[in-house]
Structure formats: C-alpha cells, structure tokens
C-alpha cells in the first residue's frame, strides 16, 4: 500500500491530468457511437477529440513535447473536423452542405499528403501498414460524412484496429511493444461502443432510415 501511495505521489501532475483527460475521452468516444443523430454525434465525438488533444498535450508537458507534437496536431485536426461537421449538419442547408463537402475534400487532401509523407518516410518493410493507416483514416473521415448510421461505424472499427496496431498502444511496426494502456482503451472503447450499438440496434423495433412526418 505504501508503495502504491509512493508511486502515485511521485507521478508528475501533468501525467495524472493526462489520465483524467484520457478517461473523459473514453467516455465521450463510447457515448458518441451510441448516437444515431449526426448532429449530436459530431458534437459528442468532437468533445471526445478535444479531451484526446488535451491528453496528448498533458503527456507532452510531462514527458517532453517532441514525442507528442505530431499527436497533438492529429488530435487537433480531429477536433476541428468534428466540430466543423457538427456546425454543417446542424445548419442543414444547401450552402452548409456545399461548404461541408469542400471541407471534407480539403480534409481528405490533407490526410492524403500527410499519410503519403509518412508512408514514404517509413521503412520499406512496414510501408504497407502505414498505407493501411492512411486508407482507413481517410475512409473514416468519408464514413463520418456519409448519410446513415452504418458507414461511420464500420469505418471507425477498421480505423481503430489499425491505430491499435500501428500507433502507441501496440507499436508492432518496429517490434517496440509499448503497451500504452490509455491509448488502447480509447481505441477499444470505439470498437466496443460499435458492438454495443449493433446489439441494441438488433433488438430495437426496426424503423426506416428516414422518418417522414405522419399526416
């Protein structure tokens, strides 16, 4: 017990803060995939992404920004994307949809450029895995924008699996197994949430994809 108290006491405050931000991220990410309505989904997942960014920032403050800079950029990109999509879907006008589509195309272009650079700079034997990461992340962004409840959930599962395999949680790329528990939990929460959603979905009364008003 004394050892545990000593261990916690010796942890950097920023590191503890990162863990709290991580738990909040898990909560919001799990919640978001239970929501069918796109407007609310983007708001909740956007808040999740925001705390995800805070988590990387806090880890950076605890361990040094150099290792976290790219993750802070990636999570900021997710936060902005989700909140912009939230605004676009909330307005639901021809103009907002047009802006949303242009924004989506810009997001895809950014992801393509960033992903291609990563693939090119990666060791030859693991390029395929980085390419897979790029493809699944772009698919996820498109899936988020597409109508209906299925595309976003299917694409996020593939994306989360690839992130689990390629990023900090299970860094299989170079044989460097770091076991970032929080990172694993965040990605797993998305996958579990999708599974829970489909269990609930299978049980509920079947309603059409679009709801027309009663006369």
């Amino acid at each position, binding site marked *: 017990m004394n050892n545990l108290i000593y261990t916690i006491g010796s942890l950097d405050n920023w590191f503890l803060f990162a863990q709290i931000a991580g738990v909040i991220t898990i909560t919001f990410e799990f919640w978001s995939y239970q929501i069918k309505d796109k407007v609310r989904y983007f708001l909740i997942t956007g808040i999740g992404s925001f705390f995800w960014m805070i988590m990387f920032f806090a880890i950076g403050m605890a361990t040094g920004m150099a290792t976290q800079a790219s993750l802070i950029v990636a999570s900021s990109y997710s936060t902005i994307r989700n909140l912009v999509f939230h605004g676009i879907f909330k307005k639901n006008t021809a103009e907002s*949809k047009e802006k949303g*589509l242009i924004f989506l195309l810009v997001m895809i272009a950014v992801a393509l450029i960033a992903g291609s650079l990563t693939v090119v700079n990666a060791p030859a034997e693991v390029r395929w895995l980085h390419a897979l990461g790029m493809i699944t992340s772009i698919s996820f962004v498109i899936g988020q924008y597409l109508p209906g409840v299925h595309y976003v959930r299917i694409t996020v599962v593939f994306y989360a699996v690839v992130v689990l395999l390629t990023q900090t949680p299970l860094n299989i790329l170079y044989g460097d197994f770091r076991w970032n528990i929080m990172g694993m939990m965040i990605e797993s929460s998305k996958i579990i949430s999708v599974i829970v959603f489909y269990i609930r979905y299978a049980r509920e009364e079947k309603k059409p994809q679009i709801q*027309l008003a009663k006369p």
Partner: protein
Amino acid sequence: MFQVISDSGCDFTKEEAGEHNVHVVPFYVSFDHENYLKEGVDITRDDYFDRLTNEKGLFPKTSQPSPQDYIDAYTPYLKDGKDIISVTISSELSGSHASAVIAVDTLKEEYPDRTIVLIDSRNASVGQYLTLKEITKMRDAGLSLSETERIAREILKAIRVYFTVENLEYLKRGGRIGPTTALIGGILGLCPILQLSDGTLSQLDNVRGKKNALKLIEEAMVYALKDEVENINFVISHIRSEKDAANFFDNVEKALNMKIANPISGIGLTIGAHTGPGALAFAYCKKYDTFLS
C-alpha cells in the same frame, strides 16, 4: 358556388383542370431566356420534356404569371357574380403569389361585393395538386367558401411532400445545391431525398442510386402511414418515370393493404424545370372530411 383558380404550379393537366373545373393560370417557360411560352398553352408537357430529354445541356427558365394574368383570370368569374378561391405556389419559391395579391387589390374596388380568397399554399406540385383536389371536392359537396378556406388551410398545414431527382444538374442550376455537391454527387450517382416543408425545400437524405432512394421513401412512407390508411389521400407524380411510379404505388398499396384511386399524376413544366426528367414526387394529406367541424 365559387370558382377555384390556381397557378400552374399545381401540375393539373388540361384534362384534369376541365374535369375538376379549376381555372389554371399558367407560368411561363423559356429555353432561350428571351421568348417565354405559356405552360400548357404555347407548349405541351410532352413537347417540353421531349426537348429536355433529347437536348443535353438545355436548362429552361420559368417566370411567374403577371398581375394582369391573374386579373384576366379572375375578372370573368367576378363579372358572373361568383366568388373565388385562388391557390398559388409557395411564395418562398416564386413571385406568383405576389402577382395574385396585386390582382386582388386591383379588383377589390371594382367588385366590392365579391370575395376572392387568396391562399399561399406554401407548397408546390403534388402538394398543391392534392390540396386543390380536396378544395374541388368541398366545393362540389356544397361547403361554403369560408369553411372551404378554413379546411384548405388545415390541409396545407398537414400536407407532406417528398421527392427525389435523377439529375443533380437541374438542382444546381436552380441554386438548390452547390456546384461541388452536384459534381461529387453526380460522380457517386447520389439521389437526394428532398422534402417541401413550410414553403421551403430541404434535404432529408442522400442515397446512391434512384432505386435505393425510392426504396427508402417507400419504407418510410409505409411506416408513417400505417395507422392512417383510412383517412389519407396519396399521390405520386413523376416526369418520364411511369414505371418507377407504378411500382412504387403498387408496393405502397400492398404494404398498407389499401386501394387509392387515381394516385399517379405528372409533374408540370414549372417544377419540372427545376427537377429535370426522372424526378418523382410524393404527397399525402388527410381527407377534407376529417377536418369538418
């Protein structure tokens, strides 16, 4: 008995107008943006949609009836001592209602004993069509002008209109969607599902392929109508999509176990200019007698 008048946004054919005794004030359409033709008078539906189908890149323009067109339509009935109920396409979509307002104001002094009830349908096409049909039924059943107006306004509040289009280019030309949406949507073969609600158009969903769009509307419509089968009127309208319309209607009839008389109509030139060939529209509303006091 009062006279029923509507602009051609109601999609009545000449035959339907004659059968239901509705005077239709035509919109104008133009292919060259210089010479305007009166809908149903100077150009028939068939000729119009033949040109749209065969001449790629042809995007006609429409123009609302002028106040004088309405004055010319109203005057003979007023002279005959008849009151009028006049329904226009949504004022959010066209200036037709504004023209009718000017005409009514102009004629008020000349015919102080006559009443012209002017209704902004805040609707169009199939929605306006169904409402007009109910108005003519009320007139033929001997309801008073004021009771007919009250119920017509109730129907218009409750009416639901949905449609889908095949070619996004027409929506783009009409400013209903942006150029990027039209381009990407065209490449992906997307069919938007649109609703006309409270006078304005909005998008409900986007689906790949017309077949899927129709399936989605069909499922949603059956779900929405399943408890109201006895009390509703239902109509499908289309441009050169007779087979799709017939299939849709058959499926809905079977699913709801109901029989609907004359459910299929045709979209007119005015709305057709903004949707293009291949469009299908759907509307339903409660029958007028459910609103009787």
